[in-house]
């Protein structure tokens, strides 16, 4: 498969403390979002932050991995719901670091049993490129629950 390139832009006016920025999805045009440092470290006030965008990226990456693993095992999902919480903390001597990403997944998968679903979730965790990437410097956990399969 060819290389895939995706692009985003931010324009920032003024200093970090008092200024503000607008983040744009240049490739797709899917979003244009306000961002400030206060929204990053204090109260979000309806503005996004790099960490929130990473949480959205990880949840999106995991959901596609889980779906493809379930399909590979012959039990394609009807519906999946994934939540991701990214934690940034001040680490002594290293400044602010992204220390943890917690994934919670629920899925409706007709015909699935618990063991096969658990196998798919483990494979999704291993196969999601974003999980692999940030495991180098942060902890990644996942919790997957099978809901109301027939």
């Amino acid at each position: 498969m060819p290389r895939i390139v995706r692009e985003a832009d931010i324009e920032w006016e003024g200093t970090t403390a008092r200024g503000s920025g607008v983040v744009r999805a240049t490739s797709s045009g899917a979003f244009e979002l306000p961002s400030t440092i206060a929204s990053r470290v204090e109260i979000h006030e309806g503005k996004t932050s790099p960490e929130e965008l990473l949480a959205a990226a990880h949840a999106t990456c995991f959901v596609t991995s889980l779906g493809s693993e379930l399909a590979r095992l012959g039990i394609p999902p009807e519906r999946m719901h994934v939540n991701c919480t990214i934690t940034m903390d001040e680490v002594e001597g290293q400044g602010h670091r992204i220390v943890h990403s917690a994934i919670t997944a629920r899925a409706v998968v007709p015909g699935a049993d618990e063991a096969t679903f658990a196998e798919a979730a483990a494979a999704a965790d291993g196969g999601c490129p974003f999980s692999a990437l940030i495991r180098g410097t942060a902890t990644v956990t996942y919790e997957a629950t099978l809901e109301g399969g027939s």
Partner: protein
Amino acid sequence: MADSTAHVTWSGSLLEGSGTIESVGSGVFSALPITWRARTGEEGGKTTPEELIAAAHASCFSMALSHGLAGDGTPPESLETSAIVTFVPGTGITKVALTVRGSVPGLDAAGFVAAAEAAVENCPVSKALAAVPEITVDAALA
């Protein structure tokens, strides 16, 4: 400590199904559509994990650079940053290329390049993406 949360739902198979980034903690966006086709081929106004990572890295880098410049006594008037993320299916993210153009009163080109290089080193998203083989920055005064 700061926690950031996002919720995503998906229906159907990977190739034919589709999903939605339903909500994020700040509420600044909701209902962003996602598909595998958008991720690997035609985009059609749908976002992807790699585009969100590009947005996260461009944002983080801009904040770090702005902070560094202010700390050096030359706060920027404006910064415009783009991040290009290269994703190879089966391999992962192989490169992030940052480009920044800045209006910084009282700073010369070499000083701006040095500040940009320091910002790449210091930004928390760069540190989180340390496993990416190549992270580059092209910095110039506007």
